[in-house]
């Protein structure tokens, strides 16, 4: 029982990190209309920047503020330079481009930081255990991750629902020709949404460091799961991605406890079931 509770918490934490990646993928797919294959690699880059910042400043706090800004700038720069020429071309072009970008980023990190990976310390102030009342005490850092993810998800939701820019993003996902015909400078929104998606991936990278350490392939592992989350939750569905991310995180974690050899395939079995019986995803628009 104690172990089950611990696995549940771990599952929620890994699910929460998946949610951050899936939301970015989803938004980018919605507005920019391509699947950003480099999303995982950019998450990894964010995690590495955080690992160096943490060493330089002695704490992860600064990284949590700086990395999203740096990643947003990197995302905006990528969108403006290499991704923009892909619009209006076959979707596969953007897919191949970001696929290539992934390898460039991974190899680039290997060249600079080596292949071995780095450990990242959690902030000292969070180096204690929290007694939840059930099961064994849980590292405070894990709860902190869940809280930060909650804040980011809530912030994104408010941004989309309550701001002028969010309104145009929502409408643009629906019909960007119409948005253009009204005279909206749609290009700027594409840049902005890509930058936001990458910034959020960067936050996920920062948060992951103290849990698993950082290593060049970390993005590849989580990216596939993030795709599964998007499909299971429903393409374009905000809350679908949140629900599916948490669900898959918990399912994998629980399966690891009872039948660990199946843990790797659980998300894909779920995806196949959803695609067969509910092709638009759990919360996808009908």
């Amino acid at each position: 029982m104690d172990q089950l509770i611990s696995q549940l918490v771990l599952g929620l934490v890994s699910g929460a990190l998946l949610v951050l990646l899936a939301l970015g993928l989803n938004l980018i797919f919605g507005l920019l209309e391509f699947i950003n294959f480099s999303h995982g690699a950019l998450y990894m880059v964010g995690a590495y920047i955080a690992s160096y910042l943490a060493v330089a400043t002695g704490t992860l706090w600064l990284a949590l503020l700086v990395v999203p800004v740096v990643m947003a700038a990197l995302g905006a720069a990528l969108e403006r330079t290499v991704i923009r020429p892909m619009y209006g071309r076959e979707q596969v072009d953007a897919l191949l481009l970001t696929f290539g970008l992934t390898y460039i980023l991974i190899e680039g990190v290997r060249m600079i930081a080596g292949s071995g990976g780095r450990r990242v310390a959690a902030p000292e102030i969070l180096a204690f255990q929290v007694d939840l009342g059930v099961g064994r005490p849980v590292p405070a850092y894990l709860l902190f991750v869940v809280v930060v993810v909650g804040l980011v998800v809530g912030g994104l939701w408010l941004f989309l629902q309550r701001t002028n820019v969010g309104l145009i993003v929502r409408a643009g996902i629906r019909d960007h020709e119409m948005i253009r015909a009204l005279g909206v400078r749609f290009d700027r929104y594409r840049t902005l949404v890509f930058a936001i998606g990458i910034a959020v991936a960067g936050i996920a990278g920062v948060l992951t460091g103290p849990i698993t350490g950082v290593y060049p392939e970390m993005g590849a592992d989580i990216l596939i799961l993030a795709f599964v989350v998007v499909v299971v939750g429903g393409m374009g569905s905000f809350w679908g991605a949140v629900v599916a991310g948490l669900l898959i995180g918990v399912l994998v974690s629980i399966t690891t406890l009872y039948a660990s050899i199946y843990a790797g395939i659980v998300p894909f079995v779920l995806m196949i079931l959803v695609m067969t019986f509910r092709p638009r995803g759990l919360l996808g628009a009908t």
Partner: protein
Amino acid sequence: MTDLILRAENLDRSFGGIHAVNDVSLEIPRGTLHAIIGPNGSGKTTLFNLITGHTHPSSGRVEFDGQDITGMAYAKVARKGLAKSYQITTVFPLLTVFENVRIAAQAAAHSYVFWRPADGIKAVTRATEEVLERIGLAADRDVIASNLSHGDQRRLDLAIALATSPRLLLLDEPTAGMSPTETAATVELVRELNRDVTILMIEHKMDVIFDIATTITVLHQGKKLFEGAPAEVKSHPLVQEVYLTGSL
């Protein structure tokens, strides 16, 4: 010389072997309501698209408010103050009436930085509310657009176009699919809008425009057949032959 908001010179456009628009010129003085009529396939919609930049002419030029806009992307033309309301209902179905109009009002408040100061936001909200009031949709502001009646969706379409604060408003059959009552209300609305915005409209129903148009251009097989005041058009034998007896 009259003050022209739009001057189209010798516009030409073919699709495949079909000459959709053939050497058409238009001059639209500011403040007028100019109607284009013609049977289906006479090139009305293509002519509209040539003006808005959705289609580019094979030859000829378009001047909007003294500026050459030939070949300009439609988004840029829209920013210059030329708004188009569509024949099909193209509102954003899952957003509310208010949000639909607000998008357009925001687009009009251009020069925008992403994070506009608070009073800028208030101005956009106010503009949105004014348009809703004027179009008669104020009571429906929180209704999801797809739940509106067909007639109200067309009005919303009009509201969106109006919210971009256009200097020239292009209406593509604003009364299509409307009941006689809705049609009468829309005609009244168009007449009212014309008090401060120049309107160029395509219409299929003759009776709709005879009362409100300043000038009518009759298109036939992509060519300008006749142009004049409503009374002249009505009594012109060629127009009667081609349009009134031929198509209706």
